[in-house]
């Protein structure tokens, strides 16, 4: 018997007609294509399995999802997502802004009488002030090398492109999440089918399964009695209900406003005291307020009785968001208005203030985990068994990491390497929360609505937190004068004018006059934005009418199904 190669050679040597030779060629080509496709498919599978092994924390997340359900898993998924945002930000900032600075050694020299003490890690001032951590150390020169690398343009465009990309990612994920979980989902809040179909098949713990069965039974009974309850309230009871709502909303808004005012007062009193340890007072008070005031809000919530549990969660979330936004708003107002007048080199000052906020916030997050979960567990199991094991408060924890990420987003302009701190913070926080969860908490009593809560969280992340951070950065680069002595934009009227200068430069040097024309008449003209807004509004109105028409169509089709089944029933 001949070997395969010998056989092929012998076949080749046989005299064949021209058509048969062509056939052989076609067959050969076909075989080659098939082999290529098969190897590409194998390559695709190996990439997929490699990607699975490299996915961060996948095993831990599956374990958490199995034991605690998807509402708790949402917190960890969001934490991982924000961590990826920060890793991307760090890579981009370090690559485009810091590395050219380090390579060409353009940073400011450290003053000789400032050395590293331990306190800098907490306050961010002192030795850190002269490092690449803050805006102040970046240069405004143009590096002449293989290509002309303009540091000013690099700084401006890196930050703005990163923020725009973040915004786009948030908008797309918010829209797709909204479509999946709101538009296509069942509008009834705890309909029986939703509860039955959301049974989690991946729970393996016997006790957890029994607990879930218990909770489901309670929820089913509640859904049956809710309808009855709503019809049973008298007018006087309703009036009393509204009175309680009004009172607690007034109290909550008052608390939030009071916190904002006191932070402003505290800031104006202590900013002048530049002794390092005292600058930690304001971040300490801010974090303390963020930890304590939500407890008051939960207390108010207990007195009010909302008709559905979902409305209760939304009310609590709204109040917490209001508190944090008012505190952040007051801080940003102070930074934008008062700080530029007080200091010559003001951007690093703001950067340091943000650094302190981030660090103290991290310390309080760890303390909060200790008090919120560990101590509650000890109290609930040993001292006061009636309270029971605590549940993991998803809404509060999610709001904490959204707030932490907002601080980082505001801080990127003033301190390009702040994402490093944020990466470390979120990394440690993940493991801390995971350990605390598994040791101290029980699975949530009420199941369901995890997907809708995820949509709400992404929406909150976008508005008002990301939008707020973006507007602060935009206001800084548009309206505020950069400091004269330090930073990449020294000597300019506003940060945004780098683009104007660059366009002029491009216009004058080359024959691409259309670039200048586009810049002047499209990007800087108001009429373009006015017209495009008008067109978009008209399109939105048309789509809205289309949706109304579709809704009517659905009603008609349902009626038709009933008619068809009545007239010709199935066998």
């Amino acid at each position: 018997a001949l070997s395969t190669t010998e056989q092929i050679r012998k076949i080749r040597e046989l005299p064949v007609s021209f058509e048969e030779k062509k056939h052989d060629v076609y067959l050969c080509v076909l075989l080659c294509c098939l082999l290529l496709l098969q190897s590409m498919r194998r390559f695709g599978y190996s990439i997929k399995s490699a990607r699975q092994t490299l996915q961060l924390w996948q095993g831990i997340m599956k374990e958490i999802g199995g034991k605690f359900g998807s509402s708790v898993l949402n917190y960890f998924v969001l934490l991982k997502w924000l961590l990826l945002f920060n890793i991307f930000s760090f890579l981009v900032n370090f690559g485009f802004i810091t590395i050219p600075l380090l390579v060409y050694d353009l940073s400011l020299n450290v003053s000789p009488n400032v050395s590293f003490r331990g306190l800098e890690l907490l306050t961010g001032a002192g030795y850190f002030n002269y490092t690449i951590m803050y805006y102040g150390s970046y240069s405004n020169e143009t590096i002449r090398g293989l290509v002309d690398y303009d540091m000013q343009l690099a700084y401006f465009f890196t930050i703005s492109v990163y923020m725009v990309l973040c915004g786009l990612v948030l908008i797309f994920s918010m829209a797709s999440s909204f479509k999946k979980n709101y538009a296509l989902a069942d509008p009834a809040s705890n309909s029986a089918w939703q509860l039955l179909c959301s049974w989690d098949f991946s729970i393996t713990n016997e006790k957890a399964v029994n607990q879930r069965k218990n909770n489901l039974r309670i929820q089913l009974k509640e859904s049956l009695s809710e309808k009855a309850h709503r019809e049973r309230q008298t007018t006087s009871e309703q009036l009393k209900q509204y009175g309680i709502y009004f009172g607690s909303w007034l109290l909550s808004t008052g608390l939030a406003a009071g916190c904002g005012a006191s932070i402003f007062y505290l800031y104006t009193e202590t900013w002048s005291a530049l002794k390092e340890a005292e600058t930690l007072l304001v971040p300490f008070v801010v974090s303390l307020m963020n930890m304590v005031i939500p407890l008051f809000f939960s207390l108010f919530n207990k007195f009010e009785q909302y008709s559905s549990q979902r409305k209760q969660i939304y009310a609590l979330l709204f109040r917490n968001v209001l508190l944090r936004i008012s505190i952040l708003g007051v801080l940003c107002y102070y930074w934008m208005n008062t700080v530029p007048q007080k200091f010559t080199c003001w951007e690093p000052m703001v950067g340091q203030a943000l650094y302190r906020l981030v660090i103290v916030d991290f310390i309080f997050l760890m303390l909060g985990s200790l008090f919120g979960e560990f101590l509650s567990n000890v109290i609930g199991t040993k001292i006061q068994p009636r309270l029971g094991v605590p549940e993991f408060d998803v809404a509060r924890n999610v709001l904490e990491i959204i707030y932490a990420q907002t601080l980082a987003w505001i801080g990127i302009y003033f301190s390009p390497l702040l994402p490093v701190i944020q990466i470390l913070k979120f990394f440690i926080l993940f493991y801390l929360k995971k350990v605390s969860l598994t040791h101290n908490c029980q699975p949530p009593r009420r199941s369901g609505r995890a997907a809708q809560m995820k949509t709400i969280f992404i929406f909150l992340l976008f508005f008002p937190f990301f939008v707020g951070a973006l507007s602060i950065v935009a206001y800084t680069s548009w309206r505020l004068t950069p400091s004269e002595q330090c930073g990449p934009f020294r000597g300019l009227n506003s940060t945004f004018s780098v683009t104007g200068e660059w366009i002029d430069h491009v216009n004058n040097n080359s024959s691409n006059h259309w670039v200048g024309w586009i810049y002047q008449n499209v990007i800087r003209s108001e009429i373009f934005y006015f017209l495009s807004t008008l067109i978009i509004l008209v399109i939105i109105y048309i789509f809205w009418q289309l949706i109304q028409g579709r809704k009517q169509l659905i009603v008609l089709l349902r009626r038709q199904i009933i008619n068809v089944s009545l007239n010709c029933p199935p066998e």
Partner: protein
Amino acid sequence: MTFLTKQEILLAHRRFTELLEGDERNHPNPRVPMDVILTLTELKSNPFKKRICQVFSTSENRDGSLTFEDFLDLLSAFSDSATLEIKSHYAFRIFDFDDDGTLDYGDLEKLVNCLTGETADTRLSSEEMRQLISNILDESDIDKDGTVNLSEFQHVISRSPDFVSSFALFLFYPVFSVPNDAILHCFI
């Protein structure tokens, strides 16, 4: 056609062979009886464990015994990447306790009892059950024939965004023989 990755199939094979007795391992296509399958930790506490085995079993007398292929079908239908249609199809078959192709009053009653508790003090009262099932049928029975058929079930499921993530089962790695890729999981 399976939704499992190569790693998941290998893990499933390892767990399946652990269930076999010594002499059965040499059998070309071993079939594991239902009570042995139900000793798996992932299935032990599931309220639908018996129905799951019965649905995926290909034995002639539908006694719930599974071959390795049946086991893979089971894991594939419950995996992360299975589509909504596959999952809703199998969920319908699992909830159809009398295997008649529709979910009638008896099936729905058994479903609710499975999920709320079997003992006398944990069940819903008959009045509550009647009210609950009438609510369910109001929501999902579009052609008003008193039963929920497959398309009505799939319609209700498609409006429930939590279903895909909750209708899932994962095999855990065995404690003492962790493959190298799993070690990589922990440290990356």
